[in-house]
């Protein structure tokens, strides 16, 4: 029950954050500029934070040099594919595959 309540509230909150500004977007211009600026940066700061947390989790699971190299190769693959295809989903996929192949291929080599 609490799982269902969590999912419904998460879905409802996300939906309202998309719907309300569509309906009354012009009213957001009346907020204090500092609040608008801080809110506008929340997405970027959330993503930056999540990179640190997800990478540190992966690193702590196996703090080896070969894993570090695989992470660098995966990151490079994401950035290059994003530049080439301009598609976040595709860049994510290519980066994950590059990491997977490097992680398995480099095991024990470094």
């Amino acid at each position: 029950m609490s799982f269902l309540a969590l999912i419904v509230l998460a879905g409802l909150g996300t939906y309202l954050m998309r719907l309300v500004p569509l309906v009354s977007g012009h009213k957001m211009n009346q907020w204090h500029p500092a609040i608008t600026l801080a809110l506008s940066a929340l997405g970027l700061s959330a993503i930056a934070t999540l990179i640190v947390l997800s990478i540190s989790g992966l690193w702590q699971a196996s703090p080896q040099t070969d894993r570090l190299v695989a992470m660098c190769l995966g990151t490079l693959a994401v950035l290059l594919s994003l530049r080439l295809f301009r598609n976040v989903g595709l860049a994510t996929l290519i980066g994950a595959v590059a990491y997977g192949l490097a992680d398995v291929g480099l095991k024990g080599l470094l």
Partner: protein
Amino acid sequence: MTASTATAQPIHFWHGLRASASIMIGYAPMAFSFGVVAVQAGLSPWQALLVSVIVFAGAAQFILVSLIAAGAGFGTVLSAVLLLNVRHLFYGPALVAQLKTAPRRWTPWLAWGLTDEVFATAMSASSQGRLAPAWCTGLGIGAYSAWVGGTAAGAWLGAGIGDSGGWLASALEFVLPALFIALLAQAFQRSLWPVVAVSMVSALLALIWLPVHLAMVIGMLSGALIRPWLGRLGASS
């Protein structure tokens, strides 16, 4: 609305659906990964599917299942998901400014599909001319079908992949960092580098003493709170 614009709506919708192909190519494998990761985190395949059907927010869904798996409380998980999605507040006004007509009856459907990738694709298409609300709705519905379909495939067919120990299992471990790196690269503006740096450093320092979910809130808020001091150096992130 005139008769000609009314008959044009299904055509616009269909064109939007076709335009969503590029999003579908990226969404399907990412959603497949979500299905696998969610089942690995302890959710049943039906629960994993339900998350995609009801929440429909890629990065937030990954965070949701990883926090549930880490044993975080109801309030922590919910606030993390909502904080991560706050950026969506800025998509609606920007999209409305690029529409040919007011969205009216399309509004609820348009809002439902307004993800990062749908917004980015719509903004990119708007450089060719104003967008029909029905076209944007088609774009969102296409993306949603790929996301839900991909999750179902991952949740039911991906069982065992995560435990196999092969390159695919390793690849799945990196889906989440790869997604965030791609999202950061897409949203990054040079003038906003202090926001990124402060978020990363404070999250890293917080991790030394605090659990992951608290480090997350500290990283997010510290980065966002320095944004007003940077002034109007760049547009919204």
